[in-house]
């Protein structure tokens, strides 16, 4: 976590008055899905969400699963994202607009959530955590939880390293270049 960079950025923003600007923000995440040398490989199901300080899911960012399988069969294994399933998934009507997406192959995947499209930016100030959970058919499961403080405008660049089913996971706030 680069708190030093964040402080510097905040100071710079304050000095230029940008902090009060209305330029739209976006949250850029990168999620690394490691390449695994296993006999039977299936792409993992991945859920990305925000929890509040009581560890309640307050915002779903992404759920990557077999959205296109016939008869919604892809939903059969959503329960294996067991924390996401418990905290959010089981009470959702799948697929979730703007949240559900197809599984991804091994590699580093960039997903951007834009202000005005994602409820993340409307979360009240407070302590939260980014949570990324990955579960692979006939494979393992891993969950990464990254706490952060949110004031509606600023976010330190966050990252964490998974050990098996996830590689490096990062979150950072940017100005939306299209705004």
């Amino acid at each position, binding site marked *: 976590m680069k708190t030093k960079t964040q402080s510097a950025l905040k100071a710079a923003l304050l000095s230029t008055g940008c902090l009060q600007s209305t330029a739209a923000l976006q949250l850029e995440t990168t999620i690394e899905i490691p390449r695994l040398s296993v006999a039977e490989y299936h792409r993992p199901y991945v859920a990305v969400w925000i929890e509040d300080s009581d560890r309640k899911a307050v915002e779903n960012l992404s759920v990557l699963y077999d959205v296109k399988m016939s*008869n*919604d*069969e892809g*939903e*059969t*294994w*959503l*329960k294996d994202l*067991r*924390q996401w*399933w*418990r905290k959010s*998934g*089981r*009470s959702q009507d799948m697929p979730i607009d703007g949240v559900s997406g197809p599984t991804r192959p091994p590699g580093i995947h960039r997903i951007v959530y834009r202000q005005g499209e994602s409820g993340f930016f409307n979360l009240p100030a407070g302590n939260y955590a980014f949570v990324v959970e990955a579960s692979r058919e006939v494979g393992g499961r891993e*969950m990464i939880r990254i706490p952060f403080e949110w004031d509606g405008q600023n976010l330190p660049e966050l990252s964490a390293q998974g050990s098996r089913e996830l590689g490096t996971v990062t979150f950072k706030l940017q100005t939306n270049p299209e705004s």
Partner: protein
Amino acid sequence: MNKRYQNALSCFLGLALAASTASAHRLWLLPSSHVLSGTDHWVTVDAAVSNDLFFPNHVALAPESIQIIEPDGEFGTIENAMKGHIRGTFDFHVSKEGTYRVLNQREGYFARWTEGGEGKRMRGDLAELKEAGVFAKEGVAVMKSLSRLETAVTVNNPTVDVFASTGEGIEFVPVTHPNDLFANETVTFGFLLNGEPAEGLEVEVVRGDDRYRDEPGLQTLVTDAEGQIEISFDEPGRYWLDTSSSQDAGTLEGAPLSLRYGLTMTFEVLPE
């Protein structure tokens, strides 16, 4: 109560009472899944009486003695039922969202008396006991028994309608839902006795796979004034819970009557 259910009950009664007097023999229902996502699945259930949890090694439970109560209160259909020597098994189709209850409910009467210096006993329903003239026997004592063996399976969001109290016997109250259990979290289970919070009930809880450890690992908890226990599970796995209660209840047809109620459940605890 439909006829088929009644028949199943009386067929099963002998085994139930035999099992309840030999505490080492544990009754269990073990579904293939407790938590499901999506809406179209098959669940297969093993039903047995055994010493080790959850390995069949003693007597099968008859699939016909088991009911599936669907989330909306309808009765589900038992399919592919098979009763082997040491394990009963069946499937049921899951197509509704919410919590299903798999229930084996056993009730009946048990009479004991002495005749010509010899201990006698008889099991059956009330009519059968009356017809046999049991109540005219000298020194006869009668026990009425109502025991439930159950487990729960949930599709998507857990619901609680299937746990509605009948007001009779020991019943489970899902303060914490039995399909929402995770290791190292404190959960609360409630119990009713004849519709009222069951205070002072001794509840035994043990994790399955006891074959692979030296210690039985049995926890005994006592319900508080609200009829509740708080418990946390150190390890994920499949667990077995058992409680019972006996009380004197005056007389029946002139014979001293006692009541025995039992509840046995299996549930799953997931890792975080």
